[in-house]
C-alpha cells in the first residue's frame, strides 16, 4: 500500500525544531535478521510486543489521532491506521499477534491446508464465534465468502481484492456480474462452502502464499449477508454505518452496550436496535467498548483484551502539543502521528519524560524518491540513450546524502538508511543484502549512505556529461512534492542535492493527496521527480512490497503506483513467475534477487526503511503490533486500571 502518515497539518510557530539527531543513541546497526535490531532501533526505544505478566484488566484508554480512519467497513479498509480498529474489533481468517512476523490463525481453526500444488486452500472455521449485538448469531463459512464477494462492489471500494484474490476461479465472471448489477454482491464460483465450518478456495494458479497472506487483511472479516445485504444495495454501501463485530471490542452502536467495570463484561441495554454505529463520529471520535458476545480464548482467540473501553479522539493537528499531552498525562497513547522532532529530542536527551514512553517499531515500509524513467534526463530522449539515462540515475543515487534525507524525518529513530527496497522483517530482506545492501561493484552507487560525490561525477561522465555535472536543457527537472513538513523538508534537501549535480529543479509543493491523484500517480502529468513516495507492505510477503511499485504490468494511466514507471521485461516476468512459488525459502531467495535486480536499474533513491515512532503515557503498558506498527489495543493495558 502507499505509504502514508496522515500528515500533520499546521506547524507550530513557537516550536521551530531542527533535526533531532539523537546523541544518546549508540545504535548498533549490525545486520541480524529478525528482531527490531535489524531496523536499527536502539534498545531503550524498542517497542514491547507482548504484555507484561502483571497486566490487569480494566480502565479506559484514549488514543489521540490526527486524522480519521479511512473506512469503518472492514471490506474497504486500506490504511494501516485503520487496522488499529480492525485488529481489535474483528476476527479475520488469519490474524496478527503483536510479535508475529507471519500470520496466525484467528477465525481459522488452525493453519489452512494447501493442496493441489498450491491451487486449493481449505480453511476450517472455528465454531462458536458470535457477532456483536444486534446480529448475535454464530459465524458461518458463508459469511467469509460473502465478505470477499462484496468487496467487488464499487460501493465497497477495496484495493486488495483485485490485487491478490483475482486468482480465484470465477473472479472475472464475478467482476462482469458486478458491472451489470451494482447493488448485490456477485458470486465467486471459486469460493466453496461445503458446510458451515469449511471454506475452500480454488485458484487458477498456485499463488496460495499471497492469497493466504491477503486473507489476514480486514477483508476476510466475516459479514452476515442477511444483515448487510440491504446496506450493500445502497450506492455507495452504507454498511460502514452498521458494521457488526467479532473481536473483543466493538464500536458502540444503538444497542447501547454498557461495560461492567467490576467483572469486565459487557451487555447490550437496548434490545430493540438496528446496529447503527453511534460510537463512530467521522473526524471526531470512535468509542470502542467490550463486545458482549466475545468469548476470548474459549473460542481460540489469543487476544487478552485488558481494557474495558477505548476512545479514539481525532483532530490533533499539532504533533508537538499532542505528544506532550500524552507524555505528561495519563491513560493515553498516540495513534497516527509520530512525535515531532522537538519532542523526540526532549524524550531522548532530557529527563522530563521516561525514555521508555517513546518506542519505535518497524513499519514494514520504505520511502524512496522516484525518478521518472519515461522522459529525460532520467529516461531516454533528447539525445540521451537508455544506457546513459541509467548512468544519470546511478549518479543521482550516488550523489545523494541519504542520511540527510532520512534525518528530515527526525533522525536515526525513524529508521535505517535504505540500500534496497524490501524492508526489514519481510522475507527476502536478508537475501537482498540486509541492512548493508547488495554488495559488488554493480551496486557501488547505493553503498555509501552519506553520498559519494566522486562516484557520482564518474557516472555523469559515463552518461556523456564531460564536466561530471549535468549540462544543457535536459537538466531542467520538475519536482512535485508535499507542501508540509516533513515531506516538504525531504523534497527541499533533495532539491539541493540535485542542484549540486547541475540540475535545475523547479519544486512545486502541493497538498499530499493532490500530489498523488493529480500528478505523481497520473503518468501523463508526472514530473521528473516525485520525492515523497514509498510503499508499505500489505502483509509480510515481498510480493506486496515489490509487485505494484516496480512491475511494468501494474502501470496504469490514472492510478499508477509504479512511480518510476520501471518497465523491464525481465523483471516483469520474474515478478509474475515469483507470485506462484509455494516454498517459503525459495520464495524469499527469488524475491530477494528481484529486489536486487530492481535496485540495479536505479529507478529510485531508496532513503529509509521507515520506523513508526509511538508515545504513551507513563501509566500505560503499551504493546505494539509489528503488523501495522501501531499500539495494539487488544494487548495494551493500564498499570492502575
Amino acid at each position: 500500500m502507499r505509504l502514508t502518515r496522515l500528515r500533520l497539518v499546521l506547524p507550530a510557530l513557537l516550536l521551530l525544531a531542527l533535526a533531532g539527531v539523537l546523541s544518546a543513541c549508540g545504535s548498533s546497526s549490525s545486520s541480524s535478521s529478525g528482531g527490531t535490531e535489524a531496523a536499527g532501533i536502539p534498545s531503550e526505544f524498542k517497542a514491547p510486543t507482548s504484555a507484561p505478566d502483571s497486566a490487569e484488566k480494566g480502565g479506559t484508554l484514549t488514543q489521540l489521532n490526527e486524522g480519521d480512519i479511512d473506512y469503518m467497513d472492514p471490506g474497504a479498509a486500506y490504511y494501516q491506521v485503520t487496522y488499529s480498529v480492525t485488529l481489535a474489533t474483528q476476527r479475520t481468517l488469519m490474524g496478527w499477534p503483536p510479535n508475529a512476523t507471519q500470520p496466525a490463525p484467528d477465525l481459522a481453526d488452525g493453519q489452512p491446508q494447501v493442496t493441489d500444488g498450491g491451487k486449493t486452500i481449505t480453511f476450517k472455521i472455528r465454531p462458536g464465534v458470535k457477532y456483536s449485538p444486534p446480529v448475535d448469531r454464530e459465524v458461518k463459512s458463508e459469511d467469509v465468502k460473502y465478505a470477499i464477494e462484496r468487496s467487488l462492489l464499487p460501493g465497497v471500494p477495496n484495493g486488495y481484492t483485485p490485487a491478490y484474490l483475482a486468482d480465484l476461479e470465477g473472479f472475472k465472471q464475478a467482476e462482469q456480474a458486478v458491472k451489470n448489477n451494482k447493488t448485490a454482491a456477485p458470486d465467486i464460483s471459486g469460493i466453496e462452502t461445503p458446510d458451515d465450518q469449511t471454506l475452500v478456495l480454488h485458484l487458477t494458479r498456485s499463488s496460495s502464499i499471497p492469497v493466504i497472506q491477503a486473507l489476514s487483511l480486514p477483508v476476510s472479516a466475516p459479514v452476515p449477508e442477511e444483515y448487510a445485504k440491504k446496506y450493500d444495495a445502497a450506492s455507495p454501501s452504507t454498511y460502514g454505518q452498521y458494521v457488526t463485530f467479532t473481536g473483543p471490542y466493538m464500536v458502540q452502536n444503538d444497542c447501547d452496550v454498557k461495560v461492567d467495570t467490576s467483572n469486565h463484561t459487557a451487555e447490550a441495554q437496548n434490545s430493540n436496535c438496528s446496529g447503527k454505529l453511534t460510537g463512530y463520529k467521522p473526524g471526531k471520535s470512535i468509542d470502542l467498548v467490550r463486545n458482549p458476545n466475545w468469548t476470548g480464548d474459549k473460542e481460540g482467540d489469543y487476544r487478552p483484551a485488558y481494557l474495558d473501553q477505548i476512545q479514539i479522539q481525532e483532530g490533533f493537528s499539532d504533533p508537538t502539543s499532542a505528544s506532550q499531552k500524552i507524555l505528561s498525562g495519563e491513560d493515553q497513547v498516540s495513534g497516527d502521528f509520530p512525535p515531532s522532532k522537538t519532542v523526540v529530542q526532549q524524550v531522548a536527551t532530557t529527563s522530563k519524560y521516561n525514555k521508555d514512553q517513546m518506542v519505535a517499531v518497524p513499519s514494514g515500509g520504505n520511502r524512496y524518491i522516484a525518478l521518472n524513467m519515461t522522459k529525460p534526463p532520467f529516461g531516454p530522449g533528447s539525445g540521451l540513450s537508455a544506457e546513459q539515462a541509467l548512468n544519470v540515475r546511478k549518479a543521482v543515487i550516488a550523489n545523494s546524502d541519504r542520511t540527510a534525507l532520512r534525518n528530515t524525518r527526525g533522525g536515526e529513530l525513524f529508521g535505517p538508511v535504505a540500500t534496497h527496497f524490501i524492508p526489514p522483517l519481510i522475507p527476502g530482506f536478508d537475501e537482498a543484502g540486509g541492512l548493508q545492501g547488495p554488495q559488488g561493484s554493480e551496486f557501488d552507487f547505493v553503498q555509501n549512505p552519506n553520498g559519494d560525490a566522486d562516484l557520482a561525477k564518474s557516472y555523469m561522465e559515463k552518461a556523456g556529461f564531460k564536466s561530471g555535472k549535468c549540462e544543457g536543457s535536459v537538466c531542467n527537472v520538475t519536482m512535485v512534492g508535499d507542501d508540509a513538513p516533513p515531506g516538504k523538508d525531504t523534497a527541499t534537501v533533495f532539491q539541493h542535492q540535485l542542484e549540486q549535480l547541475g540540475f535545475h529543479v523547479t519544486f512545486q509543493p502541493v497538498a499530499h493527496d493532490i500530489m498523488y491523484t493529480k500528478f505523481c500517480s497520473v503518468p501523463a502529468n508526472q514530473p521528473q521527480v516525485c520525492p515523497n513516495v514509498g510503499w508499505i507492505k500489505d502483509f509480510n510477503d515481498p510480493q506486496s512490497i515489490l509487485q505494484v511499485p516496480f512491475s511494468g504490468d501494474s502501470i496504469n494511466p490514472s492510478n499508477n503506483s509504479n512511480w518510476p514507471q520501471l518497465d523491464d521485461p525481465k523483471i516483469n516476468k520474474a515478478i509474475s513467475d515469483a507470485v506462484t512459488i509455494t516454498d517459503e525459502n525459495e520464495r524469499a531467495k527469488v524475491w530477494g534477487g528481484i529486489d536486487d535486480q530492481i535496485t540495479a536499474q536505479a529507478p529510485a533513491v531508496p532513503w529509509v526503511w521507515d520506523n513508526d515512532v509511538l508515545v504513551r503515557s507513563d501509566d500505560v503498558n503499551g504493546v505494539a503490533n509489528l503488523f501495522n506498527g501501531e499500539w495494539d489495543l487488544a494487548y495494551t493495558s493500564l498499570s492502575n486500571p
Partner: protein
Amino acid sequence: MLRYIVRRVLWGVVLLFLVSAVIFLIFYVFPNADPAKLRAGRQANPRLISQIREQLGLSDPIWEQFLRYMTQVFTPFDWFGASQHGGTGPLNFGNSFQSNTPVKEIILDRLPATGLLVAGAVVFWLLMGLPVGIISAIKRRSALDRTTMVTSLAFISAPVFWLGLVALYLFASDVGLIHIFPGIGSYLDADTFLAKCWSLFLPWLVLAAATAAIYARYLRSSMIDVMSEDYIRTARAKGVGERTVIMRHEVRSAITPIVTLLGLDIGLLLAGNAILTESVFNIPGVGREIVVAINRSDLPVIQGIVLFGAFFIVTFNLIVDIAYAYLDPRVRYQ
C-alpha cells in the same frame, strides 16, 4: 418593516444559490485531489475508480450535478437523479464522499462545538473590549489609554495559533507551567455541558483576545466621535450626571457600529472562521471540519458547510440590520 424583512430573506436565498454555484465552480476548476481515486485506495484499477466516480455522481455533467444538489437542498422533488445519489430533499445535503455519512448529520454534530466556542468568546470579548474602549476614550491620551491601545495592538497582531500555544504552555493542566485550565482535546473528554464550558475556557480567551482588542479600539474611536457631538453638550447643560452622560448618551450612540460588527463577526465565526482556535485546541467544530474536507476533496461536506456558513452570515446580517433600525430611529423608514 415586514416587507423589508421578506425582501431581505428572498435576497438571502438568491445569495445562497449563488454561493453554491461558486463553490461548485471552484471545486471543478482548481486542482484538487480526485475524490473517486481517494476513495478507491492506492491499488485500485481504473475500472473501479470510474465505477466509484459514477456512484458518487461525479461522472455527470457539472450543471446536472449542481442542479441535483440544489434540488436536494431546497426542494422535495426527485429531479436530476436525486434519489439515486443521496436521496431527495428538502435540506438533504448529500453524503460525505469519505465516510458516506449524511452531511447534515456531520454538520449538526459539529455546530454545537463551534456555537459554544463562539458564544463564550463573544461574551468574553464584549466584557473585555467594551469597557476598555469606553474608558480609553474617556481618559484619552492618558497613560492608561496609551497602554491599552498598545496592548490591544499586540493582541491583534499576534497570530491566533501562536497565542493558543502560548496559552496552553502557560496554563494547561497537563502541559502548562501553571496547571489551571483544561488543555488540548479536553472538549472531547467532557461529558456534561459545564465540563464542556470549562474545557473551552482557554479557547474562549484566545479567540476573544484579538477581537476584544479590535472592539476596544473601534469603540474608543466611535466614542471619541460621539463625545464631541452637540447633544452631549446639551445633556450636560441639562445637568445630567457624568456617569449617565457616558452610559445613556455617549455609549448609546457609540455602540451602534459595534452592533453591526458583532453580527458580522458571529456570522463569520459560525461559518468556520474559528478554524485556527479549533485546530490548536482540537475542538471538533465546523472550522476544523471544513479544512479536513478541503484536504480530502470531500465536496458535499465543503458545500454543506459553506452553505450553512452563508446562511449564518446572511441571517446575522439581517438581524444586525433590524437591530440597527431598532437602535437608530433615523434609519427606520427607508
